[in-house]
């Protein structure tokens, strides 16, 4: 049984202005195995963030089924944690306080355990010494580390990541990608990773699903054969570029269809 199963998922948005429905997701099916890193790429507006929000339990859906370990998703749950595109940190809490926050809301751990885990994940994302700083004192990359640590500290079965590095500069993004793989190799969570950056998806994931826009559909799923650990220089390997190119062509082709 897959860890995260999406079966024939359909989602319509109601557009109030002209009384019609927009089909955001149409018959989307996807199975993510336990411990697998699955990336989803697609043009903006293809519904990939909608898919993630449904998996997080933040959006209702119309048809089909989303399940974790076979149990249907009906709302947010302690088996999932989300890493958002915007760090979404409480500005009045310190870094340690923010990393604690997810655990605190979910009430799964005792105070002592929460303190230990906070400490552990502060170190895991390399922010020791910044525990008592406030988010406004940190760079964008560091804020995203806190966002990630908050999710990991909550010990989810499935980690949902919504373009977490999109707002970072190119150099920081590359470093964060390598960092994420290092952390993931220790934590071994099931990951659903949304991005519009194809090289990012190919570098990080075990499989890359390509979505098309209007309506949002899964077009194809590419297995990524590279061994782990993956060094950053893999991105310049010809085999890597071949796969990236193949994914690119598929994404481009859809854009043409959508454009016409």
């Amino acid at each position, binding site marked *: 049984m897959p860890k995260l199963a999406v079966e024939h998922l359909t989602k319509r948005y109601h557009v109030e202005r002209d009384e019609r429905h927009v089909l955001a997701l149409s018959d989307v099916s996807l199975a993510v195995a336990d411990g697998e890193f699955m990336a989803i790429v697609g043009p903006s507006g293809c519904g990939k963030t909608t898919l993630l929000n449904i998996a997080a339990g*933040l959006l209702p859906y119309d048809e089909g089924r989303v399940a974790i370990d076979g149990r249907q998703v009906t709302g947010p749950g302690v088996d999932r944690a989300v890493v958002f595109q915007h760090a979404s940190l409480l500005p009045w809490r310190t870094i340690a306080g923010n990393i604690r926050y997810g655990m*605190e*809301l979910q009430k799964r751990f005792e105070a002592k355990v929460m303190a230990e885990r906070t400490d552990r994940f502060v170190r895991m994302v390399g922010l020791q010494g910044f525990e008592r700083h406030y988010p406004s004192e940190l760079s964008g990359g560091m804020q995203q580390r806190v966002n990630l640590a908050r999710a990991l500290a*909550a010990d989810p079965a499935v980690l949902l990541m919504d373009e977490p590095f999109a707002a970072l500069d190119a150099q920081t993004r590359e470093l964060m990608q390598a960092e994420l793989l290092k952390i993931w190799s220790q934590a071994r969570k099931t990951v659903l990773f949304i991005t519009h950056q194809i090289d990012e998806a190919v570098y990080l994931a075990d499989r890359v699903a390509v979505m098309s826009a209007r309506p949002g559909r899964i077009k194809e799923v590419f297995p990524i054969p590279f061994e782990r650990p993956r060094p950053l220089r893999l991105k310049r390997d010809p085999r890597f570029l071949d796969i990236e190119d193949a994914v690119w062509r598929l994404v481009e082709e859809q854009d043409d269809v959508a454009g016409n």
Partner: protein
Amino acid sequence: MSPATESPELLVRPRRSLYQKHERLIVGGVAVAAVIGAWQAFWSSGRISPLFFTGPSAVATRFVEEWTHGKLKSDLAYSGANFAIGVSLAIAAGVVLGIIIGWYRRVSMVCEPFLSALYATPRVALIPLILIWFGIGMWSKVFIVFINAFFPVLINTIGGVKAVDADLVRAARAYCASDWQLFTTVVVPGAVPFILTGVRQAVALGLIGVVVGEMFGGSEGIGYMVNYGGQTFQTDTVFLGVAIIACAGIVLTSLAEQLERRFSRWRPER
């Protein structure tokens, strides 16, 4: 403060640091002292009638008289109590109602027309009605303070709740936050800077409320003292009352400002 504006003699170390540290206080203090000195000199020259005007020394003398023999102490206590009770009730009610109205869309639709009408009405117009309801005793004063101080707290709290960061709400929801957790960890802390702005305005308006309230009927308090002094041409007493109100305003507003700053520590520095 910038080096370019320093004159060379101020660069002598001890004088420089002492002056620079308290530049605002020193310049302001000197200015106030100069004005009071000029006022005193003008008054001492005896060219104005004490019926219409007064001088610093006369006000000070009146202060000592009223403090030792008069009922200034009891007036201060009376006004202080009216102010404290009225403003406290206004803050409590304004924050609680503001959070409810700001968060629940339906409640806000129900309340908005009434609030707009009340907010647009000059509160002074309600004073005769308040006197009919509460009499001329202490509670009418408290209520006048309350109604003056209530709106800034309410309006600012509603604004603060409505301005809550949607990303933070979504993050809290994703981690299974209950409504109560959402209020206590996101909505209320996020609204605190707004609430404190409301408190600062409430303090200023509450002070007006206490003075105006005591001018309408009753026979106690600083507002009454000013009003009575005016009607009996005791210009010293009027000035003393005004000076006391001004001092209270300065002290209370700066306290509220400090509170505001204390709670916005986490804000990005501007």
